[in-house]
């Protein structure tokens, strides 16, 4: 069930706006049919959330084709034109580098970068935000980017590092497959961070876009000898605080001229 401004929301007209099997349609349908109440302060906030989820999935697809390498923190590497590799294997935006260009470079020149699955998820979220905010707002909001698993210094994005139990996974969520009996020699296979995609697929860096059984099989191949427990998908998800992120976007729109609620993926324009 969806509530907007404290009232039940009729999702049918909005569902008709989005193509079947689009991320927005799927997320809206799932929320609408859920026993859980999904609350939004405004229709615009709901559209923003759908747009972010759509762009998250698009960024995951793009990353899967980018050539971004898998590397543990000890072996991590990056394009030093934009990023400084820190001594713990993280990437720090270089002084003077333009944040939007630095994020885009990871998708354009993926082979120049190697990192593990958590950092890859953070990169996806930044890319989705860049698409939804636009370069100008993105660069003003995220002047100092540090990429290193869930060690997130950006206050606006704290929630993507803290998974919580959820009644259902939504497309665009960050989820996690746990591998409780991982081999100690390959401890980085102790789990896999994933983005929930359409059609019951998941994207995990180093594994690609796969079904849950395929990801579980990959993890299970890296278990300790004599293991008896299988890897499994946890019932938790980490979601950006879309409300807070929308607040930044909304404030920027108000300051920069007439209120036109246009998000990048849709031609639908609504006025306040």
């Amino acid at each position, binding site marked *: 069930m969806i509530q907007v401004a404290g009232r039940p929301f009729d999702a049918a007209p909005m569902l008709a706006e989005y193509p079947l099997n689009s991320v927005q349609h799927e997320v809206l349908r799932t929320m609408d049919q859920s026993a859980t109440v999904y609350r939004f302060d405004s229709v615009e906030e709901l559209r923003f959330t759908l747009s972010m989820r759509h762009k998250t999935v698009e960024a995951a697809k793009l990353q899967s084709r980018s050539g971004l390498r898998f590397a*543990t*923190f*000890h*072996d991590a590497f990056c394009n030093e034109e934009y990023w400084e590799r*820190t*001594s*713990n*294997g993280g990437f720090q935006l270089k002084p003077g580098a333009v944040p939007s260009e630095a994020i885009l470079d990871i998708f354009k020149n993926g082979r120049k970068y190697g990192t*593990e*699955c*958590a950092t890859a998820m953070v990169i996806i979220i930044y890319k989705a935000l860049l698409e939804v905010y636009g370069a100008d707002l993105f660069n003003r909001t995220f002047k100092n980017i540090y990429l290193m*698993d*869930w*060690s*997130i210094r950006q206050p606006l994005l*704290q929630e993507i*590092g*803290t*998974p919580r139990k959820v009644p259902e996974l939504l497309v665009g969520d960050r989820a*996690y497959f*746990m591998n*409780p009996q991982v081999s*100690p*020699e390959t*401890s*980085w296979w*102790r*789990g896999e*961070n994933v983005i929930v995609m359409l059609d019951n697929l998941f994207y995990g860096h180093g594994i690609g876009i796969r079904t849950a059984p395929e990801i579980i099989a990959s993890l299970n191949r890296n278990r*300790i*000898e004599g293991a008896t427990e299988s890897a499994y998908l946890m019932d938790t998800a*980490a979601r950006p605080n879309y409300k807070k992120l929308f607040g930044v976007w909304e404030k920027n729109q108000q300051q920069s001229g007439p209120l036109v609620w246009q998000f990048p993926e849709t031609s639908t324009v609504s006025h306040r």
Partner: protein
Amino acid sequence: MNQSESTIHLENIRVEQGDEVCIDEFRKAAKRSRAEAVKLLNDNSMTFPCLFLLMPSIEEFRLQQQMYTKYAIAVEVSKQILNENYNPRKDYLKNGGEKAHETLIWMLTTGYQENKPAEKFQKIIDIVVSVLIHIYHETGILPQVAELIFTRRIRGENVHELIWAYFRSRETKSLQFIAEKLPSSDLAEADFIYDLLGISHDTKLAPAEEYEKYIVWLQENENKLVFNEENKQYTSRPVVCRMDQIEGKENAT
């Protein structure tokens, strides 16, 4: 060499004169005679950092077969960790028996205090710790691993794999060794410790007082703690153990 052969210890040269001199001395010896080089290697004061430094030369002069078993295993293990396509003669990381166990402990105990370790060296140490804890259930190394976590953190280096392996020992002693750092910690380090222990601290208490409180709580509840799988790959705030829902008391803080 100025010194007589019998008094030369490569580890001393490495520590006192640096890596380059150590490698140079060893290579000169190897060029003179393989036996002389093997004698320098098969020295009871040899350490893993020194052996690691000499690995390319050991390879070049094909000396591995003549080395003490412990040192030869250490070289084999290192090659296996650093090269995923390497096909080891024997997989000492899976189950190498007592000799492998002894070697891995030697690698850690002579290596964990290394001052400026290379990234590859750290990678080896991390996997050695992981194998010792998971395969050999070796809990005697926990104080050294705790020490290494703090040393690396101060240097701004990667600690995630170490922390994960450390708490996978599922030993309450692992919590105690971390908590013992509290009384001497500054504020930043204390915050790191609170994060590791998964406690939100009382801001009115100094770290030393917080330590006293935590230890009392730990003693009362150590049999009721349940370790879980949370780690930094999954969440920014892993809570490594929780109280048994039925038996445990409220958390210390």
